[in-house]
């Protein structure tokens, strides 16, 4: 029997990017706020100091910062005819755990979606005809526009100190930036990072082919910066240990470096760590949440009553918590009815690896979000007529480090071990060069999340089941993108090169990305969305899912964090300016 705690105004599930932003915004309103976080407290100097943050074996291989499957995992399958099996070692994607969440170990790549990503179905229908959209493709318009979100993108970028070069300031194109991006109300808060040699070579080759390369917007920042909360960030040292690692230099944007120092000063905020929320409690009508129940590490169960519940866990776990709590109708792929778990999507990535002639790239001088990119083939920036697919992605020299255990480029035909392998790895370490594409993943009727009928977690709750595969549209798109990338690679005159477009079936054991989206989709119609345009549950109006990637109706050709951060601020304003004045459905 859960022990009941004193009531709070707001309980937040998860203390990562969205949880910390919402906690700060709510506590600043004078509300009494508690955030319940499954994992431990994490702090720069004690958890990832520069003295051992770059321990590739501990963090990169043994995944020290990540969620452990014995805490929570999910079952996966490629299609509805298969029996899903549990992931026993996370490898295809890597959910975070602990304060800061996935924002601790991300690469820092911080993009905005394109303006016409937000009205995707309408835009494609108008330009190409509604009949050209595959019947099973369940893409839909976002319930917000780019113009509405622009101020919130700006706010998140300023919070995080993002480094970059604007390509479009209030409609005026800017040399050196991304010419395809939506309008920006201001320049990036910090200038672009320095580029390593490989990226400089890529940019040169792309320019010769007529493209417009630009520096990737980065949450690893180029110079020290004080954010609007008064928190100071440091300068990136280009150590090349970002993804899978915490940053010891206060240089990578995260809850730790951008929000927590100010948040923890607020006396009306409490962080309850090492405590997993097991369900959102509803009253007898099922229309109102009364708070949450959580279990601490000693197995003790607690009930935390609250007036507002903010679901701020990682994307996948937002969906599972909504399913387990019975909020919103679960999605049924056969009838197409129901919403929770609907429109799960991923990301379609691919790469071209090369060995360059007479070049010493020193690729270990790197940062998670460095690199020069082109955006000619993203979204609907190019004509899709007769291409047989929709969507696209950015591409470029995305090398984020050359860590010694996992970075071992060798020429084709090299043995996998032994003296010859050692010799080859020493010779090609600094001339190996990988470039990549980062493509969209549209949503489909039979790609979804639901509760597994067989497997349960340590509390006896059903695991979540993921049914997902790459569809023809995505495979064609990846082939097209990879072909364009290979053309640029050829211009670098490599000794050898291998282009690897994404092929099906999706393999959950090979790391691709942790951009899992959808499942609690935001929309204008309760029949096809779980939350409304303010990320508020249609069914239980005092529950919000403030901007986790689970609200994306489909995934676009960019990394999600910029949009996640923007939606967090968008939701915070909706709660502050609308909900608190008149609690109830906002739409």
């Amino acid at each position, binding site marked *: 029997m859960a022990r009941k705690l004193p009531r709070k105004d707001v309980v937040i599930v998860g203390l990562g990017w969205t949880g910390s932003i919402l906690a700060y915004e709510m506590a600043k309103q004078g509300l009494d706020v508690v955030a319940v976080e499954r994992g431990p407290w994490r702090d720069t100097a*004690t958890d990832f100091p520069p003295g051992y943050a770059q321990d590739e074996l501990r963090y990169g291989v043994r995944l020290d910062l990540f969620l452990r499957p014995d805490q929570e995992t999910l079952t996966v399958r490629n299609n509805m005819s298969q029996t899903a099996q549990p992931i026993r070692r996370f490898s295809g994607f890597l959910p975070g755990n602990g304060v800061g969440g996935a924002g601790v170990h991300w690469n820092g790549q911080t993009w905005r979606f394109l303006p016409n990503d937000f009205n995707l179905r309408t835009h494609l229908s108008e330009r190409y005809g509604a009949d050209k959209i595959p019947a099973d493709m369940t893409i839909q318009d976002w319930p917000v526009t780019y113009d509405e979100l622009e101020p919130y993108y700006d706010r998140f970028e300023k919070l995080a100190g993002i480094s970059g070069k604007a390509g479009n300031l209030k409609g005026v194109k800017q040399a050196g930036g991304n010419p395809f991006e939506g309008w920006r109300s201001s320049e990036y808060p910090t200038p672009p990072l320095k580029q390593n040699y490989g990226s400089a070579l890529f940019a040169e080759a792309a320019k010769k082919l007529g493209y417009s390369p630009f520096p990737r917007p980065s949450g690893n920042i180029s110079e020290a910066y004080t954010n609007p909360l008064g928190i100071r960030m*440091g300068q990136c040292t280009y150590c090349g240990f970002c993804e899978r690692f915490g940053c010891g230099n206060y240089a990578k944007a995260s809850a730790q470096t951008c929000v927590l120092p100010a948040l923890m000063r607020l006396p009306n905020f409490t962080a309850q760590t090492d405590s997993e929320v097991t369900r959102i409690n509803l009253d007898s009508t099922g229309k109102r949440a009364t708070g949450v129940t959580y279990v601490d590490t000693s197995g003790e169960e607690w009930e935390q009553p609250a007036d507002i519940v903010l679901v701020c866990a990682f994307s996948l776990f937002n969906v599972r918590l909504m399913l387990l709590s019975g909020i919103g109708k679960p999605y049924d792929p056969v009838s197409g009815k129901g919403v929770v778990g609907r429109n799960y999507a991923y990301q379609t990535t691919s790469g071209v690896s090369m060995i360059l002639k007479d070049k010493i790239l020193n690729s270990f001088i790197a940062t998670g979000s460095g690199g020069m990119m082109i955006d000619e083939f993203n979204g609907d920036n190019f004509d899709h007529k007769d291409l047989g697919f929709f969507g696209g992605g950015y591409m470029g020299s995305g090398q984020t480090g050359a860590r010694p255990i996992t970075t071992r480029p060798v020429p084709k035909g090299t043995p996998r071990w032994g003296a010859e392998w050692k010799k080859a790895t020493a010779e090609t370490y600094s001339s190996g060069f990988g470039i990549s594409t980062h493509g969209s993943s549209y949503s489909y009727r039979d790609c979804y999340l639901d509760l597994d009928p067989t497997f349960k977690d340590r509390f006896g709750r059903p695991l979540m089941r993921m049914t997902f595969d790459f569809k023809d549209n995505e495979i064609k798109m990846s082939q097209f993108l990879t072909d364009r990338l290979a053309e640029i690679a050829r211009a670098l005159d490599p000794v050898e090169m291998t282009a690897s477009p994404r092929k099906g079936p999706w393999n959950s054991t090979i790391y691709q990305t942790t951009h899992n989206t959808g499942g609690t989709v935001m929309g204008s119609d309760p029949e096809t969305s779980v939350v409304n345009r303010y990320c508020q549950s249609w069914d239980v109006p005092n529950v919000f899912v403030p901007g986790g990637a689970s609200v994306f109706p489909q995934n676009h050709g960019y990394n999600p964090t910029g949009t996640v951060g923007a939606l967090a601020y968008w939701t915070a304003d909706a709660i502050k300016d609308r909900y608190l004045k008149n609690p109830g459905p906002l739409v």
Partner: protein
Amino acid sequence: MKQSLASAAVLLLSLMSVASAQDPQSFDRVEKGRYLSVLGDCAGCHTAQGGQPFAGGLALDTPFGKLVAPNITPDRDTGIGNMTDDEFVAALHDGRGRNGKRLYPAMPYPAYTRMSRDDILAMRSYFKTIQPVNNAVESNQLPFPFNIRLAMAFWNWLNFTPGRFQPNPQKSAEWNRGAYLVEGPAHCGTCHTPKTALGGDKTATPLAGATLQGWFAPNITANTHNGIGGWSKDDLVAYLKTGANQYTLASGPMSEAVTHSTSQMTDEDLAAIATYLKDSGVPSDGAKPTPVAASDKVMRVGEAVYKDSCAACHKDNGSGELHLFPKLAGSALVQSNDPTTLAHVVLNGARAASTAGAPTAPAMPSFDWRLKDDQVAAVLTYIRNTWGNAAAPVPASAVATKRTSQARFD
């Protein structure tokens, strides 16, 4: 007519404020006392971490043993609810508790004796308003013979000069306010003035730096080499107000002083303290010793350790990063005669104060698990003698002593 009514009202108001100043229970009086308790950082010792305000319980490690700050809430059994005003004044002015019981000078009465009776009575008014907490504290946990309170009679005879602050008519009002604060309520010398073997102030060298609780409270005289002589008045004010300025960040015991006391002082009082510190005591020539040569073997080891373990934050040129990583080049603390704080910070790490003006509270990680004594000594010698810095080399034995003694302080 209207005018005379208005002036009558003004007269009435001013009469009321005179009256309220004398009323020990008036808001102004209590608020004045509250502010004085901030100036005196009473909470720094009398409020235990996570404990009730002023209910005592914070243990102070002195070179003579452990003293625990008593409960000073108005609780009649375990606090000071039964104290008379005169007894309260005597405690602060003379170091005498109830019934003449002698206090230990961990209670900084040698500084508070400079405070005016009126200020102390205002503090008394404030302490009467706080929540009484029943919490019995055994203050005297010193070993024999230090646990004999009568010994303090002898100590006082040697080390204690009672008496109120006397303004210096040659100096400005601001300077005198600063002097009063530094010597009186803010009791800066309690930590920063070198001590005799018996723990008394070395009165010839006020504020020249002293070691306590495993830290070196640095020289805060106007010495330009290892004091604050190189800091502008604004630098000093920024440091006291936010815990951070263009050179460094407050950590260790000073972080507590900034959090509980200086960050809550008025800008005028901070300016007064800065004015006084920039113009206090014996002027120093700021002469530098000859630096250890860069070619010295220890310096070369130190440089290698620095590049490996320090340069990522403090940078190759020792410039650090504003408000994040203290600047080592030109740092007075780095060039202090006593490297205790440096060894402490490298071995244990340290966290900067978090204040409204500088909330980040960046932290230095601990290196005790990673660096051996001679490596710590070498890197300290290196930072003390590079980028124009000059200070005596740090022997490995000093680091070893620090490493074995720190268990006592943690």
